[in-house]
């Protein structure tokens, strides 16, 4: 066996020893972690078992309860106010529509009234014109009628 072979063998075995040591260290760490995990779980369970409802959970639950109540109230208030606003808005709209309809009806009535008055005025004017003009216009005819009566 040459010196070179001896040297290579030495470094190889050193590497092997190093790797083995690393694996052992990893296994030791794994065992330690698993032991700590078991101890932690036992401690937690014992604490929770003797005090079933831990303060932390209760606090978190009450925080959640408060938050959900607040959210619920906000939603309820929002929907109620939106309903109220909508009803109010609808009432306003109905009032405006009624006022507009009344105004339109009044306008129509007024227009009709004016038209009727105009017509009456015109008829009255025609009547007065006729009553004033017909006697003179009808005079020859009346004379003829009276002559025929005399014969």
């Amino acid at each position: 066996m040459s010196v070179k072979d001896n040297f290579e063998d030495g470094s190889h075995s050193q590497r092997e020893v190093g790797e083995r040591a690393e694996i052992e260290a990893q296994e030791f760490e794994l065992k330690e972690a698993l032991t700590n995990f078991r101890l932690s779980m036992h401690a937690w369970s014992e604490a929770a078992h003797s005090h079933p409802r831990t303060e932390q959970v209760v606090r978190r639950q009450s925080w959640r309860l408060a938050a959900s109540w607040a959210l619920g109230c906000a939603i309820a208030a929002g929907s109620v106010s939106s309903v109220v606003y909508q009803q109010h808005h609808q009432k306003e709209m109905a009032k405006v529509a009624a006022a507009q309809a009344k105004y339109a009806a009044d306008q129509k009535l007024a227009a009709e009234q004016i038209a009727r008055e105009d017509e009456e005025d015109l008829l009255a004017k025609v009547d007065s014109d006729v009553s004033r003009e017909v006697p003179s216009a009808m005079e020859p005819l009346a004379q003829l009628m009276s002559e025929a009566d005399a014969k």
Partner: protein
Amino acid sequence: MATAQELAAEEFSTVVTKHRPQIFRFLLASTRDVDLAETLTQECFLKAHRNWGSFRGDSTAMTWLMRIAINLQKDHWRNRRMQFWRHARTNSVDLDEASDWLPSGERSVEQQLLAKEQVERVWESVKGLSERQRTVFLLRYVEEQELSEIARATGLSEGTVKAHLSRALGRVRAELGGKR
């Protein structure tokens, strides 16, 4: 003279006193939720009480109870997957909180911190395990059960239990090694 029924009730009461902490611990580790673990433990013993008459003693009472507990938590996860609101209301604690529980013993502050970090990493890897792998892992490394007991409690063969354990340990190893 006590009747058979009274004797059975007394026997059951002894079983509850003896095994309740262990069943609760397993359910707490599976759910990380104290309230839920309490509820499932109650359900487990209620179910056991109803079927106490049919328990023939083929396995130990502990194995029988653990089997009921495993089925209950399995049912719970199955139902929860379908119920978004239940999922949203979960009380399970964070991994950070779960790893807070460590007996201080005679450790230095540095050792305690190191241990807390290790526990956190184990929790992190447990979170990534499948339901079966997690159950087998917890029974082995928290409850320190033998492989044969785990096989009986889960209804799996010993070979399957070994395979699940090996995969679970692989994950823990990777988590510990990856963050070194």
